[in-house]
């Protein structure tokens, strides 16, 4: 059989439907300022940021096998960069978002060299300690409020756009754009050689090395991209919150544990997982948050329940059951002379 007799396909029918669906959804969301309420916009921004954080974490843990419980380091870093640049350099907060991404990428490189020496659980704890170090260092920066925290001056916020409405729209669109860019980048990355290398490393690092995969560089690329993305989202989140303090900016619960909840509930190692997980998370929060302690109690129970009943997450369960895949990454070989796909 000759070389021409095969072809390799990525997509399935459900994935083509999926892509069309996403395009439609994007158009609808982009137009949200014209049909949604102010409160909906704000909620959507929050949802976008969680989808982005979860997708980035999923890239790191689910694809690169780097289970980090310290991504709050970059959320906080991005946020502090935004506050620092906006307050002291007078830069428009909107522009500080990409700068936060860049600076964090640079900072992530030496951090990676340190924590890449650790494996598995040690890596997880190591990332957490690094985030603690970031938090404690932030608490030592007096001009940014030290341990007390600081608010973004009202003038800085109002300078973003002329009217309150324009400002809200602008932030909404930035959030949407950031999410689309991050998701797009992840899909592209995973469909590229890097995606292959990542899956290989996750499955068997020794074998990957022996097959010519530069393991360290591949992981580094993913780590740095994740750090940059997480930092930009962090900056955006705190542009919405207007106030920062080390405990909040580097909160392990909020920016990592809940994110892990989301990814695992949705389905880890699948691109759809973080989206499904975020929807579930927000549904729970919107319906139950006013119950206070009971709400958190129930959140814990849901997380444990999903983990025990559907360990591959909700999307994993559905995908296995019905063979759905919205973003297929597998490369299937088909024979040209065989039955049509």
């Amino acid at each position, binding site marked *: 059989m000759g*070389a*021409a007799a095969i072809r390799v396909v990525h997509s399935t029918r459900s994935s083509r439907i999926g892509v069309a669906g996403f395009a439609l959804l994007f158009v609808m969301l982009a137009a949200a300022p014209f049909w949604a309420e102010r409160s909906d916009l704000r909620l959507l921004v929050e949802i976008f940021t969680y989808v982005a954080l979860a997708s980035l974490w999923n890239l790191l843990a689910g694809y690169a096998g780097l289970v980090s419980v310290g991504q709050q380091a970059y959320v906080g870093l991005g946020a502090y960069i935004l506050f620092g640049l906006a307050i002291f350099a007078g830069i428009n907060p909107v522009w500080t978002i990409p700068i936060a991404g860049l600076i964090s990428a640079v900072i992530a490189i030496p951090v990676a060299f340190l924590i890449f020496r650790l494996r598995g659980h040690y890596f997880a704890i190591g990332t957490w300690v690094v985030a603690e170090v970031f938090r404690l260092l932030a608490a030592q920066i007096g001009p940014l409020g030290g341990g007390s925290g600081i608010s973004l001056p009202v003038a800085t916020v109002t300078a973003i756009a002329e009217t309150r409405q324009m400002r809200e729209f602008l932030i909404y669109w930035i959030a949407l754009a950031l999410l689309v860019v991050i998701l797009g980048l992840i899909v592209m990355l995973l469909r590229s050689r890097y995606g292959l290398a990542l*899956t290989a490393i996750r499955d068997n690092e020794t074998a990957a090395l*022996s097959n*010519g995969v530069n393991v360290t560089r591949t992981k580094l690329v993913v780590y740095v991209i994740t750090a940059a993305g997480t930092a930009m989202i962090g900056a955006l989140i705190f542009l919405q919150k207007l106030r920062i303090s080390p405990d909040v900016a580097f909160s392990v619960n909020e920016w990592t544990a809940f994110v892990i909840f989301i990814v695992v509930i949705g389905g880890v190692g699948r691109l759809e997982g973080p989206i499904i997980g975020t929807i579930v998370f927000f549904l729970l929060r919107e319906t139950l948050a006013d119950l206070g302690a009971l709400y958190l109690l129930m959140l814990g129970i849901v997380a444990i329940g999903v983990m025990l009943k559907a360990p591959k997450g909700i999307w994993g369960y559905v995908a296995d059951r019905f063979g759905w895949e919205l973003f297929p990454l597998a490369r299937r070989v088909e024979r040209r002379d065989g039955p049509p796909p």
Partner: protein
Amino acid sequence: MASILTLDGISKRFGAIVIANDVDLAVKKGEALGIIGPNGAGKTTLFGVITGTVPPDSGCVTFDGRDVTRLPPDQRCRMGIARSFQIPQPFGGMTVFENLVVAAAFGQGRSEHDVYAQSHDILERCGLAAKANRPASSLTLLDRKRLELARALATAPQLLLLDEVAGGLTEHECEALVDLIRDIRKTGITIVWIEHIVHALLAVIDRLVVLHGGAFIAQGDPQEVIRSPQVNEIYMGIPADA
């Protein structure tokens, strides 16, 4: 003919166990070399030294005229050293075909699309084409061993290190494997093969070395080496009356 691989004064020990004590070895281009030795002699470890997963205590490894002693495994692979693992190490979450694509794309440093056809060809040669879209984790032992071999081939090696690829195969399967390795040889790839299934080994190799106690205690013509009393005593164990 020039040596493609030389080991110069390699020493390696794990605590009190001496794997290699100032070992020298030269493998000629195009040669098929067999390595035997008692269990635990250090054969697999030697492969680790050659591929870069096990750092030697001293000595140097030269491949294709370059000192590679300090290079990481992935770089050595791209230079043309490929190995199969004694205990198969598939990328379990990927399909068989993707396993090959990884090896071909990264082992040769080529783009993914360029290696599709080639990867599929190798799968056919190794008898895995029918299972191309199956997850590698679902393969049986035989197929895993085939996959090991196929992946090593996909990196387009100059030097192929095989670690007990015939173990656990039936006679029939073993014969097919021997044919395949012979074919590979014909394409000019140098082969170093560790095997306990001696008859399979003898069917392929030109030269046999015996590793024992940290040194090559015998080497040369396979038939002669295998019949030598020393090798019989420590390795074959054929009783005198047989």
